[in-house]
Structures are given as C-alpha cells and as structure tokens.
C-alpha cells in the first residue's frame, strides 16, 4: 500500500468502526430492527482486501455482516443507514434490512442471511464474468463457520474444475455465534481445508491491514490472471456479540483483551504516528469529523427519509409487465 493511501485507509477503518458503533446505539434506541450483525474488530479484512480490488468493477458478495463490505464497495453510507432505518431511500428500498444490503450499480451483489448461501452464487457470478470475457473477478467474504456447509465444498469443487475467477475470503473470527471453532470444526486452519480441491490458499493476520492488503494483492493477481480460484483466510476477531441478541458470555476476558490489544485501527494509527505521517491531534480531528458526519449527515438522512408506502408491499415479487408471461409480443 502506498504511504499516501494509508491515511485514507485509516480513515475508512475508523469510519467503519464509528458507523457500526452508531448502528449499535440506533438499535438500542429501536431505530433499527431485526437482526443486526456488527463488524468492529474485523475492519482490516474487508477494507484491506477491497483496497487491493477494483471496487465498482469487481463483484463483491457476502453474508449478513455486510455494511462495511457494501460501503467499501462504493455504497453511499447514507443509503446503507437509511436501509437499516427501513426507509424508501435505503439501498434496498427498505425491503432488505441489515442482512440484505444490495448496491448493484457498484457491483455489491448483496448480503445473504443463509450461512454458506453465497458460496455457489459467487461461483456463478464468476461463471458470468467468464462468459462475458471481462477481467473482473468475484470476491466472496464469508465466516469460518460457513465452511462447514456443503455449499463450501460444492462450490470450491466447481470453481476449480471450471477455472472460475473467484476469490474466497474467509474471515476467521474463531466463532460461529457462540461455538468456538475447535468445537465445531475438525481442521482449525481453514486455508488447509481447500487443498483437497487443489486450490491455492494462504492464511494471514487479519488485524494488520498492510498484511491483508499484500496477501489480497497476491490473491487477486492470481485470480485476475485467469489462474482460477483462490482462498484467503484472515485471522480476526469480532468485539461485540454475534448479533445484537447475543449475550456474548461465552468468551474469556483474557481472550478478548488479547485481541483488543491488536486492534486494526490502533495498529495502523500507531504505525503512521511512528513514521511521522500522522499526529495524535490529526487523528482526534479525523475522529471528530467522522462522528459529525455520521450524526449530521448519515443519521439525519436516514431519520428524515420517508418509509416505503405500505401499499407497495406487492412490488418486486415478480418482474413488472414481462411480455413473455403472455407468450411474447405476437
């Protein structure tokens, strides 16, 4: 990563942190409903990988923990927040919610709630890319526990035999809700699991955005060069419970402390300060600016936006006025 970009990346990670913390508050205030899965602690994963991708050109798909992936892909944070507020101005017009952020104009192909669901969708998007003949790739972010779904194995197999341009990124935060990985999974190192499909893979520290960026660059170069799928495992940790309804009582305090000592935002901040590229005051200023932006622009936009009219509940079930329903225009 170029030095000039690092400050911006720091800002993006700090923004991601503050955005998610504000979501937490809005949920407590009952402005956001449903299931809400937050990303604090894992920022370097989505932001580091997508920093190495061509956002808006490459396709991105992920699970329900999707706000930051969408924003880094180019989605307007105002419209992401408006979606959480269930407004007509939301990215998915208030029909999707936190787990179903979509921004197709930016090729953010969605957040999906079924664990493991996006694995084959990503392979299919890659098949579409292959048929169109472009140099895009599809990047699929999913959790560690998702790898115990059949779709993981089915998709890796198909991606390999058909040489599809897809990068699978495993955000290994060591838990699937409250079940620690060693209690659910026979092989702890996820990158080793793909060797059975003859797919190249790597494991990287997911808290260090520089390292994530480097590893992602290598992975993306491989996939874009037409060499087929790649699997990148990032070791990370989520600070909050799995979702807002999770008590988070199953993790040892010592474990939590260990991980918060390797905070991705603080690590990059300190590195930039040490290198003389940032001062403490500048960082504080950046933080204040972000907090103001979230409050004055993003939350305000969401809160002031109209809800979708209930009379439109029947829209978007099927295509509107599709001529082939009547057997075409004859």
């Amino acid at each position, binding site marked *: 990563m170029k030095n000039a970009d690092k400050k911006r990346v720091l800002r993006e990670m700090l923004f991601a942190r503050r955005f998610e913390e504000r979501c937490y508050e809005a949920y407590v205030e009952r402005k956001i409903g449903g299931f809400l899965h937050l990303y604090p602690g894992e920022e370097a994963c989505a932001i580091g990988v997508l920093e190495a991708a061509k956002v808006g050109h490459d*396709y991105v*798909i992920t699970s329900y923990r999707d706000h930051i992936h969408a924003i880094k892909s180019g989605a307007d944070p105002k419209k992401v927040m408006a979606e959480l507020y269930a407004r007509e101005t*939301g*990215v*998915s*017009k*208030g*029909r*999707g*919610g936190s787990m*179903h952020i*979509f*921004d*197709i*104009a930016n090729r953010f*192909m*969605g957040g*999906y*709630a*079924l664990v493991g*669901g996006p*694995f*084959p*969708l*990503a*392979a*299919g*998007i*890659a*098949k*579409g*890319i*292959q*048929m*169109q003949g472009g140099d895009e790739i599809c990047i699929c972010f999913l959790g560690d526990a998702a790898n115990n779904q*059949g*779709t993981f194995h*089915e*998709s890796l*197999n*198909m991606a390999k*035999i*058909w040489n599809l341009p897809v990068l699978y990124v495993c955000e290994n935060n060591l838990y699937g809700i409250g079940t620690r990985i060693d209690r659910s999974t026979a092989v702890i190192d996820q990158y080793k699991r793909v060797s059975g499909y003859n797919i190249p893979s790597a494991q990287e520290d997911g808290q260090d955005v520089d390292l994530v960026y480097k590893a992602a660059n290598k992975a993306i170069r491989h996939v874009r060069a037409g060499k087929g799928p790649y699997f990148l495992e990032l070791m990370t940790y989520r600070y909050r419970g799995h979702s807002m309804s999770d008590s988070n009582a199953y993790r040892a305090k010592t474990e939590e402390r260990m991980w918060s000592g390797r905070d991705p935002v603080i690590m990059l901040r300190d590195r930039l300060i040490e290198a003389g590229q940032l001062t403490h005051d500048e960082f504080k200023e950046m933080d204040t600016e972000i907090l103001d932006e979230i409050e004055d622009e993003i939350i305000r936009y969401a809160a002031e936006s109209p809800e979708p009219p209930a009379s439109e509940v029947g*829209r*978007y*079930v*099927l*295509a509107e006025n*599709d001529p*082939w*329903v*009547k*057997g*075409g225009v*004859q």
Partner: protein
Amino acid sequence: MADIMMWEALVRAHDEEMANDPMVIAMGEDIGVVGGTYKATLGLYDKYGEQRVIDTPISENGYTGLGIGASFLGVRPIIEIMSVNFAWLAMDQIFNTAAKVRYMSGGQLEAPVVIRSPGGTAHQLGSQHSARMEKVFMGVAGLRVVTPSSPRQAYGLLKSAVRCNDPVFINEHELMYNMKGDVPAEEYFHPLEGSEIAREGRDVTLFGYNISVHWCLKAAGLLSKHHGIEAEVIDLFALSPLDREGIRNSVNKTHRAVIVEEAEPAVGVAAEVMAIINEECFFELDAAPVRVSALNVPIPYNHAMEKAALPDENDVVDAVRKMFGV
C-alpha cells in the same frame, strides 16, 4: 405441425433458445456428453460445447446456486435437476435466493433461471424416486411454476421461461417424455400464466395439470359415453400464479368442479383451486367441489400397492358419478 415426442420438443426449445442468445446455457447432471437422462438436451453438447452445455457434479444446491449467481450477470441458465426428488437439496438456493432476491434487493437484482425437473410417479421407482413436488414450489412467492401436459406446451413453456425475467420452475413428468403430440413448425411461445380448455363441456369441470389432464380427458370420454355427462376439462399448465379467471369462468358455466392431482391431498394444488373457487364463485356452485388425489403415503415399490396409492381416470369417473348420484 410435426408429431414429435416431448423430449424432442424440449431439445428443440433448448436448441432454438441457445442459438438465439449466446448467454443461454444448459446445466445439470449427465446432460452434456450423455445428452440427459430423458434426452432433453441430446446433441446440444456437440453443437454448443462444454462451456454452454455443462455436465455438473452431483451437487444440487451448489450448481443451482451457481446458475442463479450467473443469472445475476445476464446469463440465462436452464438447469435440469435429474429428478424432482433431488430438488429438495436445492431448495435453499431456489427459495432463499432465486425467489427472494428481486424483493429483498428492492428490485435491483433478478434471477432469470429456468429449473426443469421430472417429477411424478413412474413405474415402481420406490419412495425416493416418486415425489410430486409441485405443491412445494407453488407455495412460495417470487417463483413461477408451470407444468406441461403435451409436447407443444413443453416446447412453448420452456421457450417463454428462458426469456422471462423471473425464476421459473418447470415440473415435467417422468412418464411423459416419450408422449407424442403436435408442435407447431414455426416458433411458438406459450404463455406462463393462464389455463387452457382441453375439452369443452357444460355439466362439470374437471381441473387437471400435467399427467392428470390425460386422466381427466379419458374420464370425460367415459362419462359422456356411459352417463351422458359432458365434462369440461381445464388444463392448469400454470400452477403459480393460478388462473383465477379461467377457474371462475369454467365453474360459472358448469357449476360443478372436480380437481385431479397426482400428489397427496394435503396443502396441494386441489386444495388451492378449491380455495379459489370458494373466493371467486361460491354462490355459483350446485355441489361441493371434490378432489381426486393420491393417498397420503410414501409411494410403495409393489406394483399393485403403487397403483392403489395413485388416482387414475376411474377414480375421476367415480367422483363425478357420486357427485351426480348416478
């Protein structure tokens, strides 16, 4: 007009659509080199190559999801699931993704996939190869369900399904691939909504779909010959959405309805048609609607037991006779 078998009609529809649009692909187990378990893609592998006629691994949820993902980018996959019994494994992607993605993305994304699969009960295939699953598919919003009763419908429905921007499930029948019938020589697109009057009549309406249309037609012939009852037969080739107007029009004319399905009765096509009759034309009825369904059992291997579990034209005749007290 050409008198061809249903599998030949399906090959023709695939071939024309693949020739028309390079983004149309076919995928499924043994559909390429082998040409399909029921020959619905015979010869296409040689013509269009392995990039477009894809032999998939035995990963129903995986390849169905892959087809759906590809459809996000404008690919138009025709996915064959070898037997509808295996479609249970793909329910996650069909229901959770294909049927819902347009809605939950606020209309930004669509999944124009076609999923075809032979359902129904053939001869002594046992419990795990005899599912009739159309009721499952038609119960979920966001999916179209059609089911051909003739080579003409099989051809025209597949062609329209490929071009339509909604996900379409085509419920075919294992026993009907060798059925012969007229298919127009010129290109033909069958509507995906509506119903057809397979036989005009005035005394009672027999509603059927797919194979049960043929039981209804046979029963109508017997009823006319032996009892002077003129039954109308309505072919419900579209199961989702069902043709409320067509159902209403026929019941308004005959004032009696018998619904015939090959599946178990609970939560089924007949139950749904009855509900529509209730809602649309209850006061036109001269008798309570009746359904003729399979028994509520897994399908047995034993031939006599299998026959006992399934309805046929005689059960339809009996139901009508009982209704008329003759």
